[in-house]
């Protein structure tokens, strides 16, 4: 038996070749490695959006005076709202109960009279089931009504524009204010997590389950070589998937990439290693395909979706859950990606998060090595 460096490389090359063939042989693996990123790119780029367009809003005019009509004219100008004139409040409520309109704007019969007296009221009833969407629609309706009101005040010189503080918002790092730019970094994290943890856990668990790893144990290869040979082809598939995502981000979605591309690639490799390590550890603990896939889902994919700050901002969560989010490697990767793609190189932050990821790589690889011993149960 040779334990020299030469033997190590020879055995590693042979094993890697075997693993690569095994990976390429199964259509399912390639579908997961390359097909899934493409599906996700389409979904994230063209499907998911927080941007409300043409929300149907019922308008009930119990006061049909020109003043009242003027007051709601702003609604039909907003691209986010599609107003529907409805005869009575009861009809509008029926439409809302059936989910046909997202909100009701009601002008009471005494609207113009009260306006002349000084102050009039407009009713806004929201369909609150999807609270986030309801709040966005509320913002649009109020803005559309306020805009019209300001214009009216301008024209009728009787009431001066008046002393009031006005907001001038500036959205940094996402001037276009599209949710696509903010979803794309999350997409990249998901792809790395899926290929890294889920695919690796599944493939390794299958080897444990079917006993093919045991037959490798009787050969002169060392466990570390088996692990490395597993990691290399999946690392390549993962990087290919990530490359697809980055290309799509740059050229399909015009994400600006303010930071350095080298840094993006480097942190992606680091995170992919974390995900692979996690997959290896899960499979060597469970040694069963169903359990491995479920645990990979539960500890890597679902948290990456729900707790990484990709959909739901960690700052809004209770302290305990926020702390849990900050333990996740996906959170650190996502923070870095968002900054590199949308803000620029903020080095102290990149160093800090990378150090944490590096710690995870070492920890998980050591655990995988410790769990993969040449022994039988």
């Amino acid at each position, binding site marked *: 038996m040779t334990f020299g460096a030469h033997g190590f490389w020879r055995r590693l090359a042979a094993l890697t070749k075997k693993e690569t063939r095994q990976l390429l042989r199964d259509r*399912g*693996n390639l*579908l997961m490695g390359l097909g899934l990123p493409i599906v996700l790119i389409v979904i*994230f780029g063209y*499907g*998911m*959006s*927080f941007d*409300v*367009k043409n929300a149907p809003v019922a308008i009930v005019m119990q006061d049909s005076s020109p003043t009242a009509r003027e*007051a709601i004219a702003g609604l039909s100008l907003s691209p986010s709202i599609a107003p529907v004139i409805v005869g009575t409040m009861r009809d509008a409520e029926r439409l809302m109960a059936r989910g046909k309109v*997202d909100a009701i704007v009601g002008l009471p019969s005494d609207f113009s009279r009260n*306006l002349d007296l*000084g*102050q*009039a*009221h*407009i*009713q806004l009833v*929201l369909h*609150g*089931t999807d*609270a*986030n*969407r*309801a709040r966005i629609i*509320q*913002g649009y309706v109020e803005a559309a009504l306020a805009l019209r009101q300001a214009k009216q005040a301008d024209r009728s010189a009787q009431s001066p524009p008046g*002393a*009031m*503080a*006005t*907001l*001038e*918002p*500036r*959205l*940094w*790092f*996402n001037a276009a*204010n599209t*949710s696509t730019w903010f979803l794309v970094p999350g997409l990249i994290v998901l792809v790395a997590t*899926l290929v890294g943890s889920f695919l690796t856990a*599944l*493939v390794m668990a*299958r080897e444990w389950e079917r006993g093919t790893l045991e037959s490798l144990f009787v050969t002169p290869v060392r466990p570390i070589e088996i692990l490395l040979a597993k990691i290399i082809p999946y690392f390549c598939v993962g990087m290919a998937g990530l490359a697809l995502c980055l290309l799509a981000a740059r050229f399909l979605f015009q994400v600006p990439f303010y930071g350095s591309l080298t840094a993006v690639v480097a942190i992606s490799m680091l995170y992919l290693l974390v995900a692979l390590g996690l997959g290896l550890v899960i499979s060597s603990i469970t040694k069963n*395909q*169903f359990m491995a896939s*479920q*645990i990979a889902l*539960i500890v890597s994919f*679902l948290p990456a979706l729900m*707790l990484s700050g990709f959909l739901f*901002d960690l*700052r809004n969560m*209770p302290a*305990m*859950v926020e702390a849990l989010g900050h333990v996740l490697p996906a959170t650190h990767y996502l923070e870095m990606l*968002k900054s590199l793609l949308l803000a620029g190189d903020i080095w102290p*932050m990149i160093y800090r998060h990378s150090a944490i990821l590096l710690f995870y790589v070492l920890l998980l690889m050591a655990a995988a090595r410790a769990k993969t011993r040449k022994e039988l149960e």
Partner: protein
Amino acid sequence: MNPAATVARLLALCRKELLIILKDPANRILLVVPIVLQSLVFGYAATYDLKHATYALLDQSHGAASTQLAARLDASGVFERTATLRNEADIAPAIDAQQALAVVHIGPRFDQLLQQGQPAPVQVIVDARNSATANNALAYLAGIVDQFNAQWRRQHGMAGPPVVIDTRAWYNPNLDTRWYMLPALIAALSMIQTLMLTALSVAREREQGTFDQLLVAPYTPTEIMVGKAIPPILVGLAQSAFILLVSVFWFRIPFSGSLAALFAGLLLFTTAIVGVGLSISALSATMQQAMLYAFILIMPLMLLSGLATPVENMPQPMQWFTAVNPLRYGIDLVHRIYLEGSGLAPLWNDTLPLLAISAVTLPLAAWLFRHRLA
């Protein structure tokens, strides 16, 4: 054939399938504990509501009005001041380093303009790396500025705003996103494991060679299909019930509908999911393939269901795709029953598509049992 014998055979098959799923204690834990933990954690995590936002103040006006506005921000309970800036050069570092989500910049002429009875702009710079949070923060800020204006105008003997908008929300009076999320999880979380379990069921027997035995046993393909479908449906319904318990008793989200309507709806939903899972299973040669296919399907089903972003916001071609997404109907159905207190009958636009999905996938699976191209 004797119907009693058929039922007895089916029961035997169901029992065997349930044993496979439940005999392993680790599996039993895996089917219950993660569901409960996830609904707890995600119940807290899945919120778009702004609870805690950091802001930095740059007040160059130093007047009574600007101080009053800053005090309103600090007292809002939502905005927490993490920095007080001295000049405009401090703005970029505060945002870049994520020290503050927003910088509120009150210019030097703010008080003066207000005294002169003119509009006084307040510049707000928001970190929009997370555009949802940024827009939420702006909406809250606008509300605080409105309150400030009303107070200031009152104090200075001016009339209030000519038009006041009175807002209220149906079904979810405080517009709490958790009320939307947890009922959605009743359908979404149980779907994941139900689909995976079902996808494995035939593939496992294929891989282990026992499926041939089942095919030569005195079962028709339809009976095999029914026997394979019932156990995962029971598992899925049980999982939904666990999440419902968390939602009602832990998060105290009031349940407005009837339990019978909810579970009848969930039965339709879970049956459709099991139909999809069995078809995948019949198509796959190995367990690994079955699981990969199931998983590749779960992703678009979850992401395009309305769970994360509303279906209405999607472009039209994507909305067409969601027409065959059972989870979209499942989530809508649970919301309408749970929050809006609807019965099952008015929900035909959810129940009919679910029935249609079952009517296609279940016979397809039964047919594929015998006719799969190896």
